[in-house]
């Protein structure tokens, strides 16, 4: 087995574990931020400033009783959270965390795989994520769960279109679907007379960025688009019947999705590891953290959408906008190439 | 100039289209100005064309586009102007312009004015394209187009039953001739492999004598229809149902002469066949004589002029047949002027008499409408062949031609016809303008027509007076030397002055005798026309009933055709065809009602059938090898 493949495997293991750890503290981060915004203290009992709270939560969930409802479709009920949990971190494989470093005389790439269709791969994995929710909702033999699952299916399919289309502008400009290539293009400098700007796609595709952000929130089922699990209507939606570690799988999957989509957004629109001084993975972390903060911020401030508003937003507002964006970008690109 | 040729036909077409599309709602009365200006522009453009042809003696041509490109065979639309065409251009646009101007007055107040001034320039366009075509197919297309315009204009007042019937009659009778004409063109293509004039004429001699004769006669069939020769002239008198300016332009000056023009155009073909020429001469002479005898007996002023037209066309035809080509075209030109004048004059009379056409209810109009009288008199005299008016020169030359080319019988007929010509012309003049007033003065107040109508009359009268000098001295005039370029291989005959003088004398004598007889009959009243009619008895009846031609057609053609159509309808259509169709339908209904049982409505069954079919096909494919579907 060649060394390159081996280093990829090792790096994949590293990324996965880091993600899981991050995810745990993501919950802590969220609770602290929400507490601050709602003028509360937040977790502060376990460990210094409540830092051990996520671990305590984890232990609690893992040791809870595993309940399976009587009329549930057993196999699917067991399968659904696993599906969610397994699929969520897979998408991280294509995100570049940097170029390559030298470890013990070996070149180690700071990404698991640089495939030609990386962005499509990301979208494909994202589109698979709906299965965990819809199957979990169905298998619980609970009307609330089923409704949550159905809502989720419609919502995710709708917003997946928006998500994919909003990226096309970037693809047109970069001419590639490879994330490594997209990042390397963004590290170039854009000279606008005296002004020197990084060639980040947020600057050339602001509309696409905004739409991507909205669609990403909807795609990860986060507030204000958390209709699959709307507590006040569906008493928790698709995971109503789940408890213990199966619930924690859904929980983990949701947070991992958030982190990964933040990383993805930072990679596509904000130049990834590109920064003003000393390019590196920390820049990516900072950018992703901004997105994560934005997620939490949204959750605390914006009320949940009504279901028809949600679908109307996708099909009647975002879809036309994103199509216009593609059209304009295409024309500008052709003009830039001198073909118009 | 040749690059501007296309404007000559294009302008009337544009005017026609504009008037047709927006005339009804937007232009209304201004439609007449658009049409008139367009034709005037065409006329003005035609003058430099004529001058250039006169100067260079070379034909002009302009390729517009290729209408039918089909491999090696293509039909170009190319405008072609030689001497013959140039003269026709001037006649068509000139008379056309005058008729347009006249029509402004004549059609004043008619609700369909815009329509009239759409059809009329359309006709001018078609006629111009007809004379400017450089191949037989384009010629044929516009040959039909002028027929269409004629149909539209005869039936202009289509609410009048007789007008609609006359339009249909003209159209159908013309189709008979056009059928032969079309076959003639096909035969030309089959024989020579091309339909362009120049190419065909170059290789005329390659075909057998019989073929050439057949082609020439088939082309003449078209001319028989269009130029109202025996036996198809019956449509022309009926065509007088159209507005009078239409009669003047289409049924006197231009369209009806298209047949003569085409025969002259096809001169290299016709000239090759003496048999065909003989047939043409005989038909022409018979037409001229019969039409003239009928004209003497008519009371409708327009009918008289119409039969006169038929008679004059007969003159032209037998001139062609006897070999007096240039004389035929010469007569065509002069005839355009004086016959246009006569029609417009008749129209003026009718206009002034409040749509009265019967000469028995006229008389003594001279003092009411002096301009009309004098111009009509000039036209009539020109038609009758009074020296030195236009008709005299051309007609005399035709008669001279019959003698020169040894057609003695036709010469005699021509002289007799010339006598009748004089008779009917002056009969019309005296009955209309002289003698006692036979109309009801309480109801009818004759008045002179407005200037817009009389000015064209005066202009035409001027040409009727002077146009003959184009051909002076006879057989050696300007027109002869000009037109001879269009008839390669033809030479101007060298005629002694004494011969010319003798013929001129006889002609004049005949014309004056006709004048005198009519003067005695209608002005002096010393001869009773009714008495003469009674004296002639059956002969008069024959002429007065138009030689029973319509009745003969009715018995010989129309009734058998109606009976046959009834047979086709009642038996073939209703029984055989409908029976077959209904039978097939019944069969299908029965079969499908049986087959319907196979349709279980179960999708599963259908799917099984599809799969079974696939399995069988693939199995067959495996067993019989892969060339099964090659």
């Amino acid at each position, binding site marked *: 087995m060649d060394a390159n493949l081996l280093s990829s495997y090792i790096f994949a293991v590293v990324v996965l574990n880091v993600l899981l750890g991050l995810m745990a503290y993501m919950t802590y981060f969220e609770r602290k931020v929400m507490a601050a915004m709602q003028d509360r203290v937040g977790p502060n009992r376990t460990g210094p400033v409540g830092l051990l709270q996520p671990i305590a939560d984890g232990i609690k969930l893992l040791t809870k009783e595993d309940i399976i409802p009587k009329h549930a479709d057993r196999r699917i009920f067991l399968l659904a959270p696993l599906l969610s949990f397994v699929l969520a971190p897979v998408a991280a494989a294509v995100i570049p965390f940097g170029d390559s470093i030298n470890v013990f005389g070996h070149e180690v790439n700071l990404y698991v795989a640089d495939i030609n269709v990386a962005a499509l791969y990301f979208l494909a994995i994202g589109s698979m994520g709906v299965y965990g929710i819809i199957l979990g909702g169905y298998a619980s033999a609970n009307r609330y769960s089923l409704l949550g699952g159905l809502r989720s299916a419609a919502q995710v399919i709708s917003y997946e279109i928006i998500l994919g289309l909003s990226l096309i502008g970037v693809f047109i400009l970069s001419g590639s679907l490879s994330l490594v290539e997209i990042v390397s293009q963004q590290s170039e400098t854009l000279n606008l007379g005296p002004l020197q700007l990084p060639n980040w796609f947020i600057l050339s595709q602001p509309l696409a960025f905004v739409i991507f952000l909205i669609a990403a929130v909807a795609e990860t089922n986060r507030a204000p688009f958390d209709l699959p699990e709307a507590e006040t209507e569906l008493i928790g939606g698709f995971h109503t019947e789940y408890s213990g570690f199966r619930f924690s799988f859904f929980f983990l999957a949701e947070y991992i999705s958030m982190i990964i989509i933040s990383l993805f957004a930072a990679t596509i629109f904000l130049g990834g590891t590109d920064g003003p001084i000393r390019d590196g993975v920390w820049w990516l972390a900072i950018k992703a953290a901004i997105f994560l903060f934005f997620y939490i911020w949204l959750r605390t401030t914006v009320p949940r959408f009504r279901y028809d508003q949600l679908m109307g937003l996708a099909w009647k507002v975002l879809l036309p906008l994103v199509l216009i964006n593609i059209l304009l970008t295409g024309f500008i690109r052709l003009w830039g190439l001198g073909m118009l | 100039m040749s690059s501007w040729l296309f404007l000559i036909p294009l302008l009337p077409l544009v005017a026609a289209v504009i008037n047709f599309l927006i005339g009804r709602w937007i232009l209304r009365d201004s439609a007449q100005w658009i049409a008139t200006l367009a034709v005037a522009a065409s006329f003005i453009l035609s003058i430099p064309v004529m001058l250039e042809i006169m100067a260079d003696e070379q034909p002009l041509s302009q390729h517009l586009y290729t209408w039918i490109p089909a491999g090696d065979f293509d039909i170009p639309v190319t405008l072609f102007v030689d001497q013959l065409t140039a003269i026709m251009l001037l006649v068509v646009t000139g008379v056309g312009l005058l008729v347009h101007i006249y029509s402004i007055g004549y059609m004043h107040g008619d609700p369909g004015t815009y329509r009239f001034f759409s059809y009329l320039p359309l006709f001018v366009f078609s006629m111009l394209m007809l004379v400017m075509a450089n191949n037989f197919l384009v010629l044929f297309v516009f040959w039909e187009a002028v027929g269409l315009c004629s149909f539209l204009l005869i039936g202009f007042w289509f609410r009048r039953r007789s007008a609609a019937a006359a339009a249909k009659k003209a159209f159908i009778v013309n189709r008979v001739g056009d059928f032969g004409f079309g076959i003639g063109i096909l035969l030309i293509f089959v024989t020579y492999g091309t339909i362009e004039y120049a190419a065909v004429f170059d290789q005329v001699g390659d075909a057998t004598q019989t073929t050439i004769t057949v082609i020439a006669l088939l082309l003449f069939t078209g001319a028989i229809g269009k130029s109202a020769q025996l036996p198809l002239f019956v449509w022309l008198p009926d065509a007088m149902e159209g507005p009078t300016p239409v009669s003047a332009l289409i049924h006197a000056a231009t369209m009806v002469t298209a047949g003569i023009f085409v025969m002259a155009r096809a001169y290299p073909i016709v000239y090759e066949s003496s048999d065909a020429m003989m047939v043409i001469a005989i038909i022409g002479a018979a037409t001229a004589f019969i039409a003239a005898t009928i004209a003497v007996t008519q009371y409708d002023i327009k009918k008289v002029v119409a039969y006169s037209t038929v008679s004059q066309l007969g003159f032209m035809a037998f001139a062609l047949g006897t070999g007096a080509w240039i004389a035929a075209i010469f007569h065509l030109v002069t005839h355009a002027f004086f016959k246009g004048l006569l029609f417009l004059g008749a129209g003026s009379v009718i206009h002034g008499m409040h749509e009265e056409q019967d000469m028995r209810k006229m008389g003594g109009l001279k003092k009411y409408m002096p301009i009309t009288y004098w111009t009509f008199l000039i036209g009539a005299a020109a038609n009758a062949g009074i020296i030195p008016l236009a008709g005299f020169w051309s007609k005399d030359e035709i008669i001279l031609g019959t003698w020169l080319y040894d057609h003695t019988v036709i010469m005699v007929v021509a002289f007799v016809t010339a006598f009748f010509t004089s008779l009917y012309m002056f009969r019309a003049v005296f009955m209309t303008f002289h003698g006692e007033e036979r109309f009801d003065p309480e109801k009818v107040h004759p008045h002179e027509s407005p200037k817009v109508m009389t000015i064209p009359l005066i202009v035409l009268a001027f040409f009727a007076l002077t146009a003959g000098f184009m051909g002076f001295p006879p057989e050696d005039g300007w027109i002869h030397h000009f037109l001879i370029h269009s008839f390669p291989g033809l030479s101007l005959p060298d005629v002694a002055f004494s011969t010319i003088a003798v013929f001129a004398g006889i002609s004049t004598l005949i014309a004056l005798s006709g004048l005198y007889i009519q003067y005695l009959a209608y002005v002096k009243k010393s001869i009773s026309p009714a008495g003469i009619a009674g004296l002639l008895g059956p002969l008069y009846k024959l002429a007065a009933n138009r030689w029973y031609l319509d009745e003969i057609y009715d018995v010989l053609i129309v009734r058998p055709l109606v009976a046959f159509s009834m047979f086709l309808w009642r038996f073939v259509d209703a029984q055989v065809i409908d029976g077959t169709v209904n039978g097939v339908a019944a069969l299908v209904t029965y079969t499908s009602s049986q087959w319907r049982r196979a*349709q*279980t*409505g179960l*999708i*599963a069954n*259908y*799917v099984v059938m599809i*799969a079974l079919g696939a399995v069988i096909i693939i199995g067959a494919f495996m067993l019989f090898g892969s060339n099964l579907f090659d």
Partner: protein
Amino acid sequence: MSELMPEHFMFLSAALFIIGMVGVLTRNNVLVIFMCVELMLTAVNISFVGFAWEFNQLTGQIFALFVIAIAAAEAVIGLGIIMALTRQRDTVDINQVRELRQ
């Protein structure tokens, strides 16, 4: 069997196609039949892509792309029809639907 041969994907394609066909023939549930049809389309796509791979061509892939696009359209219409059907007849049993008979 040391290298990937055309027979591999051809057998896979055939097997999936036939399984799909058998499913269409034996199942009564319209939705399952619908899924079987999708499976058959995918089987055909495998052949397309396989031949494209074998002959270093891209045409096969492009045809597969068109098949997928048309399959998407078919899914939209098919599911629409099924929804209309269940709304009217309250059934998804293919043997209960006999409107084609008349």
